[in-house]
């Protein structure tokens, strides 16, 4: 009964979504405010309905209803409750349900928090979001029904993919989807603006906090995914340029570009047609990612079990949504007013170059990801494009960008004087240079050119990020007062740029100074790595709730002093018989010590992988801080205050016009 309620709720949601598209658009066209207002209640109703469906599926999982095919395929009677709840999004069907739930959530948020938007813009925005929802609801109902029953009912489930039985994976997909789907709001705003022809600074101001919010979730999602891969896959890697990773990285890059170009459009009213294109592109790449991950056109470590009919559906949907958006863009964008002066030596001038680098970087990822398909399509053979390619191409595309960040943040808007900027940058430059030249040698007694360059860029980005707030504080007599006077938007930006520097630092050291060894170890034996001694004490069997495991005990010591005890595991999940590696890591901000069991050998020995990874933590810390920067920026009071005053102005203007 419960699954049928869920299925019915989805059908009802589809009906509501249809209304949410049709009535408000008609209302805008015919000038009927009442019809436009339907959008708000429709969006909220849709959210409730999809939530009901989602809870029904969750209930089926908790209740272990093996008559539901999806539940039986992705759960097991021995699966702990936490994973039974998260198993809802453990495979294709349920994760699509999470997708539409989050979409409806964003929709509802728009309907609640943007009551200050002009009525018609709100109506059109919600109609566009409703249209996207229609597509995905149809997709679920026609090709990927999570509520489908099966007979005969199996005695037990086939268990959740063991790779996904990890706390990191419990929250990774929701965060990632919050980001992916969140770009739909910027997309819908852009679409509405193109339709209405009102694309101005106010549009940029509405779009900005939504974009930043989506971006910060995406940042967290990607960071968490990387952290999970590091712990769970057992080979010490944290980014592999796998198609699925690229699918999340491309919208992130374009989203980052969008955040910056929105700043230009809001502050100066410039780059309008470019910004609106980026808003469309960011969501396009989200949809593209969904297609790549679920259609099976590319081979990936963690793609969903694929089904061509689903691929065809998403492709058709993608063609319709993006085709419409880009056609509308081609039609309307040339008419957007071009005005205002734009100088190279100004913040907006440099932001233009920021956009060039970010968009080209995103394009490079796209080219690398799709090139095997391209070569195959023209019958030129089968090739692979992997980390060596991406690292080689990405470095020259991103290093200048990091350098540019430092200059951009101290440059004023409109027309800045180069001399002023250079004067402010003198100290950070000298310090960065000194640290860059010395730090690699001080830490590792080995100066590599790349490490020095990386450290220089990292310190440069971190210090220059602080220049702006510092000068704002110094300008006030009372420093404490000055500290509080710095707007949160500035704090947020500075933190995000500082994190970028931190990220570059971690990345440089971990990729250049990591040491790894594969060794054969038995109890009582030890291996030395970068001055650390890893001694294997012994291996024990134990039984988990739904797996059996070998757990080894390692003692890590340096100069005779014990630093940590690490317990890596090799698990065998009973239901599917699959083996999982649980790495054990001891970490400080300066280094990770990583041990993973590769496989048992004869005589109780094990093939063991040990890694020393300097500054590994900084990479993820930077990701979290970057997201935090975004959160601080959107909490800036001007979004609340300013929108309130503009609302008054718009209302006043409307009355005057009437």
């Amino acid at each position, binding site marked *: 009964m419960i699954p049928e309620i869920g299925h019915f709720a989805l059908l009802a949601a589809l009906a509501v979504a249809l209304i949410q598209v049709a009535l408000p658009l008609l209302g805008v066209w015919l000038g009927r405010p009442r019809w436009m207002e339907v959008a708000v209640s429709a969006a909220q109703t849709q959210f409730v309905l999809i939530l009901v469906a989602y809870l029904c599926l969750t209930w089926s999982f908790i209740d272990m209803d093996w008559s539901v095919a999806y539940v039986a*395929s992705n759960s097991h009677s021995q699966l702990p409750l936490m994973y039974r709840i998260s198993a809802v999004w453990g495979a294709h069907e349920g994760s699509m349900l999470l997708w539409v739930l989050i979409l409806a959530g964003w929709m509802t948020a728009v309907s609640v928090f943007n009551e200050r938007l002009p009525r018609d813009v709100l109506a059109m925005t919600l109609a566009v979001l409703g249209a996207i929802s229609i597509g995905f609801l149809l997709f679920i109902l026609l090709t990927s029904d999570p509520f489908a029953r099966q007979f005969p009912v199996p005695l037990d489930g086939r268990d959740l993919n063991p790779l996904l039985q990890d706390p990191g994976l419990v929250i990774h997909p929701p965060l990632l989807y919050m980001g992916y789907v969140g770009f739909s709001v910027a997309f819908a705003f852009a679409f509405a603006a193109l339709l209405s022809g009102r694309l101005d600074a106010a549009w940029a101001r509405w779009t900005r906090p939504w974009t930043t919010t989506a971006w910060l979730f995406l940042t967290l999602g990607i960071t968490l995914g990387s952290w999970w891969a590091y712990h769970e*896959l057992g*080979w010490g*890697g944290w980014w592999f340029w*796998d*198609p699925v990773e690229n699918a999340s990285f491309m919208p992130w890059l374009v989203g980052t570009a969008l955040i910056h170009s929105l700043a230009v459009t809001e502050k100066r009213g410039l780059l309008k047609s470019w910004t609106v294109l980026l808003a469309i592109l960011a969501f396009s790449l989200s949809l593209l990612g969904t297609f790549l991950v679920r259609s*099976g056109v590319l*081979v*990936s*470590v963690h*793609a969903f*079990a*694929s*089904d061509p009919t689903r691929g065809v559906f998403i492709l058709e949907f993608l063609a319709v949504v993006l085709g419409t958006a880009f056609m509308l863009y081609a039609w309307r964008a040339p008419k957007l007013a*071009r005005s*205002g*002066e*734009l*100088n190279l030596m100004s913040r907006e*001038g440099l932001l*233009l*170059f920021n956009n*060039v680098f970010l*968009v*080209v970087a995103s*394009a*490079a990822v796209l*080219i*690398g990801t799709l*090139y095997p398909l391209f*070569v195959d399509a*023209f019958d*030129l*053979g*089968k*090739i*692979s*494009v*992997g*980390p*060596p*390619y991406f690292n*080689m*191409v990405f470095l020259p*595309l991103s290093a200048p960008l990091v350098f540019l960040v430092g200059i951009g943040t101290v440059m004023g808007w409109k027309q800045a004087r180069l001399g002023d900027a250079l004067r402010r940058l003198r100290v950070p430059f000298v310090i960065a240079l000194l640290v860059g030249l010395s730090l690699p040698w001080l830490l590792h007694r080995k100066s590599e050119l790349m490490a020095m360059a990386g450290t220089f860029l990292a310190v440069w980005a971190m210090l220059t990020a602080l220049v702006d707030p510092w000068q704002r504080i110094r300008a006030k007599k009372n420093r404490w007062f000055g500290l509080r006077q710095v707007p949160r938007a500035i704090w947020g930006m500075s933190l995000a740029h500082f994190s970028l520097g931190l990220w570059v630092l971690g990345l440089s050291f971990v990729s250049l100074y990591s040491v*790894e*060894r*594969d*060794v*054969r170890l038995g109890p009582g034996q030890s291996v030395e790595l970068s001055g650390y001694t890893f001694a294997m004490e012994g291996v024990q069997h134990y039984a988990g709730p739904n797996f059996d495991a070998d757990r080894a005990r390692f003692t890590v010591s340096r100069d005779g002093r014990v630093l940590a005890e690490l317990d890596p595991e090799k698990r*065998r999940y009973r239901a*599917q*018989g*699959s*083996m999982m590696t649980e790495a054990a890591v001891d970490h400080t901000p300066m280094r990770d010590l990583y041990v993973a069991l*590769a*496989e048992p050998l004869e005589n109780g020995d094990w*093939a*063991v*992988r040990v890694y020393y990874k300097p500054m590994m933590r900084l990479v993820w810390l930077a990701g979290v801080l970057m997201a935090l920067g975004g959160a601080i920026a959107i909490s800036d009071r001007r979004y609340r205050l300013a929108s309130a005053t503009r609302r008054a102005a718009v209302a006043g203007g409307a009355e005057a016009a009437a």
Partner: protein
Amino acid sequence: MNGLLRVVAAMLLLAVCGQAAAQDDLAPPQQERYRVLINELRCLVCQNQTIADSNAPLAADLRDQVHAQIVAGRSDAEIIDYVTARYGDFVLYRPPFKRSTWLLWVGPFALLAVGLVGAMAFLRRRRRDAVTAQSVDPERLREILEDKDA
């Protein structure tokens, strides 16, 4: 269903075998070459993994081959030739530069060049627009006024 079978099959493969501890008898520079090579070769049976990361039997065989050939004194290029002669360019995560891949290698940088030149041209046009707008406007205004007078 088929896809699911494939995933299950891949996982079973993952479960079967693993990394032999093969590098210890190599001298440090050879160890380094071994590391680099096995991290740039793709495991064919796996989803998308290097032979260094994969626990599949074929990956172990290929690692052993790389190891044996390094011991036998073969150069990196010879080892790569050995693998591609059997499995094609597909096994190389660093695609070779040739007729079918030049676009892959050149594309991003060509785009960057286009982007940078485009941005510079855009800025120049903007500045000229701004300058002419300032210098022309009063003149046109006068013309219009004179026209009106006449």
